[in-house]
């Protein structure tokens, strides 16, 4: 007598959550590489340290929740959360900031909601927003790209700064740090300067975006296109994010180019492209219907532009993503596709 194991279908494709997540990690490698090249060793130290802490905290939470540890730890979702947070933190952020951030992401934003698949908000962005509000000083301690950096730190010095706060020689964090392009644009616009006055001759600004940030954005674009090609993510959300930012900034740029930055600047500065391809596309917290994804992405673009231009923060991907996360279930409900065999009814 044979014992039947299950019912049809008996055949499955060989994809898994792990393979999906590993493709995303793979696509993030160029971003990590370029950002490290431009902003120094701190980036890669950040990423590795947050990943290590994240795996530890995830394992601990799984043990406490009595879930099988290995299958869930190897699903790779926590690695992506950690990499995204690591990339979003300033390159010389102190170790405790990273521990607080990633623990908050894994414990509060993920496991207290039920773990993988059940969290309504993107954990990395929850942690980023929490850190930005709680530790504004440490979170805005950014550094200039390497060509403007007179005192590049080597790997050992970087690790020493991150874990002990000891800077080599006479250096201080204040003397090393410099405002980000988005930040300085916002500040100077507030001082009634025009955009050409701000950007002309300012080494912080590159050809059309922030210096250095342009390259990071290109890396994100390349990785993101790879994910679309591999059908790991659908094109809807990134295109909608980029499209709505382009449209909005384009309209205002045409109205007054001295007050409003160009679409290219908005797209190639800050976290726009990283957000569009890697953060907004987090499947767990995004909209899932084709039309819903377009609305969701457009909403992120809109909110990002609004907060950047008239709000209190120079960059706004995190807040925009979190706000649209709340809306995703409602968007999904009202954008159900027309079902085969229903004519124009549904």
């Amino acid at each position, binding site marked *: *007598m*044979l014992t*039947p*194991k*299950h*019912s*049809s*279908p*008996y*055949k*499955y*494709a060989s*994809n*898994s*959550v792990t*393979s*999906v997540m590993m493709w995303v990690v793979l696509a993030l490698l160029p971003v990590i590489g370029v950002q490290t090249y431009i902003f120094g060793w701190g980036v890669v130290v950040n990423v590795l340290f947050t990943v290590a802490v994240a795996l530890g905290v995830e394992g601990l939470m799984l043990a406490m929740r009595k879930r*099988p540890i290995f*299958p*869930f730890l190897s*699903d790779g*979702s926590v690695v992506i959360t950690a990499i995204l947070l690591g990339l979003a933190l300033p390159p010389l952020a102190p170790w405790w900031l990273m521990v607080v951030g990633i623990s908050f992401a894994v414990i509060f934003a993920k496991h207290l909601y*039920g*773990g*993988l*698949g*059940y969290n309504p908000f993107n954990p990395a962005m929850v942690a980023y927003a929490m850190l930005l509000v709680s530790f504004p000083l440490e979170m805005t301690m950014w550094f200039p790209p390497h060509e403007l950096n007179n005192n590049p730190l080597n790997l050992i010095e970087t690790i020493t700064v991150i874990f002990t706060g000891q800077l080599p020689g006479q250096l201080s964090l204040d003397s090393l740090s410099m405002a980000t392009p988005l930040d300085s644009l916002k500040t100077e616009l507030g001082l009634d300067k025009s955009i050409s006055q701000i950007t002309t001759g300012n080494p912080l600004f590159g050809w059309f975006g922030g210096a250095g940030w342009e390259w990071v954005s290109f890396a994100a674009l390349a990785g993101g296109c790879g994910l679309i090609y591999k059908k790991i993510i*659908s094109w809807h959300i990134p295109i909608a994010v980029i499209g709505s930012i382009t449209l909005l900034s384009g309209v205002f740029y045409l109205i007054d180019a001295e007050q409003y930055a160009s679409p290219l600047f908005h797209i190639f500065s800050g976290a726009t492209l990283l957000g569009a391809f890697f953060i907004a596309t987090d*499947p*767990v917290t*995004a909209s*899932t*219907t084709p039309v819903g994804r377009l609305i969701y992405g457009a909403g992120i673009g809109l909110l990002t532009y609004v907060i950047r231009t008239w709000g209190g923060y120079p960059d706004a991907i995190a807040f925009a993503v979190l706000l649209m996360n709340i809306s995703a279930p409602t968007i*999904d409900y009202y954008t*159900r*596709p*027309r*079902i*085969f*065999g*229903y*004519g124009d009814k*549904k």
Partner: protein
Amino acid sequence: MSPLWSFPGGIHPPMHKEESTRSPIVKLPLPERLILPLHQHIGAPSTPDVNLGDQVLKGQRIAHADGYVSVALHAPTSGTITDIGEYPIPHPSGLSDLCIILSPDGQEKWISRETKDDYLFMDASHLRNRVRDAGIVGLGGAGFPAFIKLNPGPRNVIETLIINGIECEPYISCDDMLMRERTANIVSGVKIIAHAVQARQSIIAIEDNKPEAYQAMLEATANEPDLSVVQCPTIYPQGSEKQLIYVVTGKEVPSDGLPLNVGVVVHNVGTAAAIYSAIAKAEPLISRIVTVTGDAIRKPQNLEVLIGTPIRSLLDFCDAQTQIDQLIMGGPMMGFTIHTPLASVLKTTNCILATTYNSLPEKNMEMPCIRCGACADACPIKLLPQQLYWYARAKDFEKIQDYNLFDCIECGCCAYVCPSNIPLVHYYRYAKTEIWSKEREQQKADIARQRHDFRAERLAKEKAEKAARHKRKRNELKEKSDPSKKETLIKNGAKSKKKAAILEAMERVQAKKEAHKTEPKNTVNLTEEQQRKIDQINKKRETRKNNED
């Protein structure tokens, strides 16, 4: 030929068709006994015509159709009926059902048959009856009685007859081999069907992974102006009726409708060949082509098998290895597990798939849904599988119907692509059966409530009638016992006392009158004088009476 359309979703699983298409169809030798379930089709089971010990001839009817949606069953070979009883049947439930057991005598002696060549001049209803009497069901898998689909009804015009040679499920190749080897039978069958439904055009649809079959059909139909062959790009589940209609015609069959509603009828190639045999050669459906394949089969091939042949015989003939982890009837996407190889081949059995876990491994651990939406992209109906899954898990059976659970065809595409290894179709089957059982319970409850309401109404009516009867009786009694009535009346003061007296007097008068009526009347023949005197007296009495008042 108009360009093809493509339906939403779909998947491209590895097909594994080459293994079983290397050698021609072989006729399986007579088995020791045939197990013939009475219920091999959609609709009511057939009713046995034979008794224990009866000798039957090949092609003899052994059970007749019971009701409209039902077909007959025939003896696949000559022999003796040795039992009629419960035997294991191939069914997902693993339950037994009523079967006729036939022991072949090896003579293969046919009943007398009358072959017909003029079938294209036969009356459509005559064709239908012959197909029905031949016990033909849809051989593609569902087993719907074929004659019903030969009857479009007087009001429906059939624009297109589609002959389904898609065979989109992996591993299965019986239609492919049939199209290669028995091309002429299929073409004749298609012409019979087209004649019966009065189709304007007939299209044979074949997937492009069957070039030999396509070529054969193309050549066989070269001189048939109303018959064309189209090659469709391979994609699962293209063989599903509504999907195929869309691919070929661009018409969407309404969710609650039939292909007839868009002027289309679909028959499988195997059904067409069987209809040809039934009409032209008067051979009922007693055998079919079955693919025996899978990595547990050393000689995968297609066999021509008598209906009722135990699956064990097929496995032995194809040299199956002893280690079979999965024994499936049908394909890996929509087939079902056979619980015992003692069960037999049915009219709908297109494939016996015997595999080990090497080729169809058990699923990995089920992970939580990450809402990636791969399932929605794969769904050919454009449902939202993950929403259905959430509501099935939450047992929210109202919401799940809101998300059109019952439009799901259980093709398995969603589960196939799911990176979290969620057996999505299981959840939908679970929800469907739960809803059906709830509906049955609801029906039962409705009937019970109706009966209760009727009973309550009847009891109330009876009570009211009883009360009315009692009241009437009481009144009658009261009237009879007048003294008591008088007493109460007397008690009610002086005026009523008088009234009572009057009443009494009137009653007396009445009584007297009544009495007089019966007594001989001495006041009839009176003289005028006498009459006058009586009148005077009466007058006086009257005035006195008036004065008294």
